[in-house]
């Protein structure tokens, strides 16, 4: 049996997505910029994908831009905002638990003379709002926060952040990294007040190599890549038509099934968490199993095991997961997860942490199989490592 429970890392493209992409590669391969019919055919397909994604996020079509990845979306948004508003001030804010494609941008601007506040995380896994409030000044220009954390799935309080910004400094621009959120929790751009929002195709059963960026209407974001002015000049480069159209298709299917899939996944997570708690000794569930957390992520510590070893045991049984952190035996601090550390986990709990991430087509049978194999593997590893 093969059970893929690493859907936060990437997802398997849906068959319909692959078919659409195949069509784009084999038939509608024209360059959307070409004046002839073949170009128009590709352009129309892109337009349809943009419409689908705009509709899904409740955004305008002209607010949706295609990029090559979530990483590129984060870069275009954050660098663009800093470049645009850098004259107003030199203070930036982000959190300590952002993805490298966000945090490393801030580290780069730090070397260019910007002051960066890296917000701490409280024991609930949420950014410290008090610290945020205190750190905002008139020099603050850009904040970037993720909506769903990739390690434990906790949802960050973007609306509270909006309120704080409204109170302290209305001019601050807010980028939200939505790469783990889109398609997993409801995202309606009108519910929030962010300026840019990034997302990615391969996290929602679309293809790799395609990302998206929402840019609020009226925000004149300068590009960081120059060329033939595709994507209204924000992201030059011949459009990745198979990627865009595959992405669009994935969103269309998602839109139809969103509520059901979301509920199914949450049920599955509850079922799994229960079975683990009942069936295996000395475990600790690190993710909320309610609406404080995205429904698809469940982080669990198996005490007295090593996450990576457990991962390889599971892989022998066709079960694919991620470790909770890249903690290695030789270097306890180097790869240690900040989130798991911040929510008060001991070193032992961090070392044995595994991230399970589910999707719509996982089943309870699969979960039963996984728990059975988990128990056997954990017992075996404990026998070896505990003497």
């Amino acid at each position: 049996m093969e059970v893929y429970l690493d859907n936060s890392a990437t997802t398997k493209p849906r068959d319909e997505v692959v078919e659409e992409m195949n069509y784009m590669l084999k038939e509608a391969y024209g360059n959307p910029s070409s004046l002839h019919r073949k170009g128009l055919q590709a352009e129309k397909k892109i337009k349809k994908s943009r419409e689908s994604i705009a509709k899904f996020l409740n955004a305008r079509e002209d607010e949706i831009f295609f990029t090559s990845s979530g990483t590129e979306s984060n870069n275009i948004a954050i660098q663009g905002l800093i470049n645009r508003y850098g004259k107003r001030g030199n203070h930036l804010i982000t959190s300590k638990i952002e993805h490298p494609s966000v945090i490393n941008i801030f580290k780069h601007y730090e070397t260019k003379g910007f002051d960066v506040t890296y917000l701490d995380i409280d024991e609930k896994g949420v950014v410290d709002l008090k610290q945020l409030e205190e750190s905002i000044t008139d020099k603050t220009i850009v904040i970037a926060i993720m909506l769903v954390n990739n390690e434990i799935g906790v949802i960050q309080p973007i609306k509270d952040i909006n309120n704080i910004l409204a109170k302290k400094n209305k001019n601050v621009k807010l980028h939200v990294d939505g790469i783990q959120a889109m398609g997993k929790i409801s995202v309606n751009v009108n519910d929030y007040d962010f300026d840019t929002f990034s997302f990615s195709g391969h996290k929602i059963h679309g293809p790799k190599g395609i990302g998206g960026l929402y840019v609020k209407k009226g925000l004149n974001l300068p590009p960081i890549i120059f060329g033939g002015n595709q994507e209204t000049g924000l992201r030059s480069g011949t459009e990745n038509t198979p990627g865009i159209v595959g992405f669009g298709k994935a969103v269309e299917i998602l839109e139809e099934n969103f509520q059901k899939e979301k509920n199914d996944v949450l049920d599955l997570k509850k079922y799994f968490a229960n079975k683990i708690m009942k069936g295996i000794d000395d475990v600790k569930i690190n993710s909320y199993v309610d609406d404080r957390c995205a429904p698809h992520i469940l982080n669990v510590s198996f005490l007295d095991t090593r996450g990576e070893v457990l991962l390889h045991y599971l892989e022998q049984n066709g079960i694919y997961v991620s470790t909770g952190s890249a903690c290695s035996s030789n270097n306890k601090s180097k790869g240690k997860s900040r989130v798991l550390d911040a929510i008060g986990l001991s070193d032992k709990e961090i070392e044995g942490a595994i991230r399970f991430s589910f999707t719509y087509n996982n089943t309870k049978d699969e979960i039963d199989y996984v728990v059975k194999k988990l128990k056997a593997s954990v017992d075996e590893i404990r026998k070896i490592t505990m003497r």
Partner: protein
Amino acid sequence: MDKVVSVSFGELALKGLNRSFFEDKLIKRIRNVIRDIGKPYIYRDQGKLYIEANEGNIKQIIDKVKKVFGIVLVSECYRIEKDMDEMIKYSISEVEEAIRKRDIKTFKVECKRADKKFPMNSMEVARKIGHHILQSVDGISVDVHKPDLFVYVDIRGKSYIYTEKLKAFGGLPVGTNGKGMLLLSGGIDSPVAGFMMAKRGLRLSAVHYHSYPFTSERAEEKVKSLAKILSNYCGSFKLYSVNILKIQKAINENCPEDEMTLLSRRFMMKIAEKIAIKNDVDALITGESMGQVASQTIKGLNVTNSAVNIPVFRPLIGMDKTEITEIANVIDTFETSILPYEDCCTVFLPKHPVTRPKLEDIENSESVLDVDSLINEAISEMEIIRIED
């Protein structure tokens, strides 16, 4: 005019009556490494070996041939007729070419005349060519002691003009000294040890130990990459990949914790010896260096050494880590060696390993284990991977 690569042998010249055996091995190996570059013609001209080349493939040929053990020097040459005008013409163009690449103020012409029938002697040839170079190239003078550039003129069946003698690794052709079994980990040392023994003419095979699922498959891929790099020097070989998790478990359950490393290492040596003997391999090779880790103290080495009866070569025993790293860089294994995947030694690492073990104690600890059946089981499950150069 043709482009050729000249190849000089080192110690081979000293091998007396065996010389042709060594040379044949060497030529076979050269043919092998350049087999994908259009099978260039290889010939001898009065004792020296030449490979016919062209502008398009000469750099590639040199790069490959430089890695063949038994070769001391490699040069890119013009091959021309034994005609004085031609020799002058191409010597001048070699000088001009060298000046375009680097700063050259002084030069010297060195002539060797293997063909004694050539009407001028080597001194006369050198003087005449030097004179013409001085006349046609501006801003350059002769320095016979420390010139910036040598112009070499070899007069054999044909004449050969070149300016650079590239150093190869020397040593002896692979396979001229029998076979050795390398204990190949994913670290920096063992590939260097394998390289050094292959350089002395040993044909390698290698054994790698892992503890999957306690170690990752990526760690094994890394070892295969290292083996692949080694094969550029020593040719294709077999890599035996052995899972020793069951052995480690058995030691872990039955023996003192602080002897874990030494006891596992003894198993590794014994398994390697057993595979070696079965495959007609006469020695083991390890990357051990005196005092580098707890198991590599003199007493530790004594304990692991006495696990086997065939010779164990430790070419790095007297080297510092920096010296080993230098060689790893030269042979291009370093970058791969430092990739961060856990190898099987670190999984069961004791907190305080014994550094002055007594052989008797270790043998006593070992005696509670069913050593033979553990070894046989590990060997029966091993994977054999063919590493192609």
